[in-house]
């Protein structure tokens, strides 16, 4: 399998008037294409920071980070949206689906931002993805009419819309009960397998984490260890 993410001495520093916080301290790791990786660690370990850097939402303070062939340390900020819309899909803990749009419209939304004509038959594709995540009966429902688990499924479906190579999920099960958490995790696993997508999930949940191919354990901005899981 080819490498899709490579971090070398990756560093992230936040500077405020009061203090300087080193969120990631020169970490090194690689992720292979199609791999399902969990990033685990306590709060403040740097899990979200790492996902934000990989997802081109934040800038690198030092080192190198190659994502899907892009050397992010060398790329200007104005090019970041183009990488986000074509190479990366996001799933957030709070779902963040637009309350005025139906499930189908929410899933279709990322395709509106594609240039060069976007996706032909984007509506049909959105419906097809919603069917894939088991929401064929909720196509025209507004978010207010969906349960937490269903909203997160919509968010997962939305992340798949532009067929990205990488899906980044930041605590995607944090707001769900145990059953729904397992369902969403299984769904991400299935999506990864079916589409050969690389999935990185930040989570506190040890039981779910061990269902990944590998676990990157972060602590205070340093990789404690990289664990190969038995389930893989």
């Amino acid at each position, binding site marked *: 399998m080819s490498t899709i993410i490579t971090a070398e001495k990756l560093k992230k520093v936040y500077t405020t008037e009061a203090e300087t916080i080193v969120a990631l301290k020169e970490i090194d790791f690689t992720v292979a294409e199609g791999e399902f990786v969990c990033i685990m660690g306590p709060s403040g370990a740097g899990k979200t920071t790492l996902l934000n850097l990989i997802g081109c*939402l934040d800038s690198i303070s030092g080192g190198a980070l190659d994502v899907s062939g892009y050397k992010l340390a060398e790329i200007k900020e104005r090019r970041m*949206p183009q990488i986000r819309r074509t190479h990366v899909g996001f799933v957030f803990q*709070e779902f*963040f689906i*637009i309350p*005025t749009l139906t499930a189908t419209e929410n899933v*279709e939304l990322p395709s509106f*931002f*594609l240039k060069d004509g976007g996706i032909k038959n984007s509506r049909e594709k959105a419906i097809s993805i919603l069917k894939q995540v088991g929401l064929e009966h909720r196509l025209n429902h507004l978010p207010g009419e969906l349960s937490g688990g269903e909203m997160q499924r919509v968010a997962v479906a939305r992340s798949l819309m532009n067929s990205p190579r990488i899906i980044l999920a930041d605590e995607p099960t944090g707001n769900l009960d145990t059953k729904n958490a397992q369902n969403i995790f299984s769904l991400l696993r299935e999506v990864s397998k079916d589409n050969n997508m690389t999935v990185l999930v930040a989570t506190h949940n040890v039981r779910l984490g061990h269902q990944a191919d590998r676990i990157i354990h972060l602590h205070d901005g340093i990789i404690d260890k990289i664990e190969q899981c038995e389930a893989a």
Partner: protein
Amino acid sequence: MKLFIIAFKNLKRKKTRSVLTIGGVAIAVAVLVSLLGFNAGYQIALNNDVDKMGYQVLVTAKGCPYEAATLMLKGGGGLRFMEEEVFDRIVQDERIDKITPQLINTVFDADKDGGGGFTMFMGIEKSYLTLKPWTEFKEGEWFSDENADEVIIGYEAAELEQRRAGDKIFIPGIDKVLTVSGIFERTGTQDDGVIMLPLKTAQRIFDLEKKLTGIGIKLKDMTELPAFEEDLYDEASIQVISMAQVKGTIMNLISTAQILVTSVAFIAIIVAIFGVVNTILMSVFERTQEIGVMKAIGASKLDVFSLIWYETILICGLGGIVGSIIAILAGNSVEFFVKKLLPYAPEGNLVHITSGLLLLSLVGAIVLGLVSGIYPAYRASSMRPIEAIRSGE
């Protein structure tokens, strides 16, 4: 187009706020459309009124020329008198195409309109009809002779007095009874409210022998007017008024009022702009996380800018449409108030709202949206996705 639909759905999120903001824009647009409609309508009505007087030049007794012209236009008492011999001298001038003498007098009628009012009587000669060839009889005919105790009544005056040809009419204060020889068709001018009688009869019964209030003149060539005016300059008792000048002066007077109303409209537009900016800015702040997520899933600065801009354009566009409808529906009320307030209001529609004006107002409203949307759209598009997403934590 898809972003436009999202923008429309965003407006439905806070319906009351959106409706109130659209209402603010609508009021500003309605005021502006009514004002511009009034500007156009008044000018058309004034031109029509002046043109339907039939003459280009008015000779009156010395005094304020514009007061005299306005009184001739709208009717009313207070006109000064000049000697009829002036007419006898002027009529010889070869530069004149058509000419007619007039004697206007008003009489107070205690029974008029319930609380009393003035009725306008105008002494005329047959030449009056040559200057107003469009005048037709609804019924009856011209006076039987130039000294006859007869009247011809304007269309509206006949309706008000409930008179028909052959009926008698009483002139209060003079205790004179005259016979209605004819009734004119509606002309759409002040003449519709006037009671006309032969010039000599008017001079006799109002005890104004050899007196006139005005002489209407149509020159063969209007370029002769300055020379014509110059030649009459030595006549100490009279003045020559060009109706074109009268139009200009009345429009100048009206434009003073228009500046005031334009200022009000301008303030309404400024208030509307602030209202739109405030509404959209609040909406942007409330959706900070949402905007952050949109950027995270690939929206560029331009996408976010366009989305917010579409929202302001929608608010202002809808406000423009609603405002135009209000202006059309309220046109009659505006006209009613304007006619009450202005010292002289021409006959006919004073508020002239055309499709071109409506289109202009809609385009103006959209431009208003474009201007109002710049700052909120800039704020939204400048948000860094990560900070925007974290803002709700």
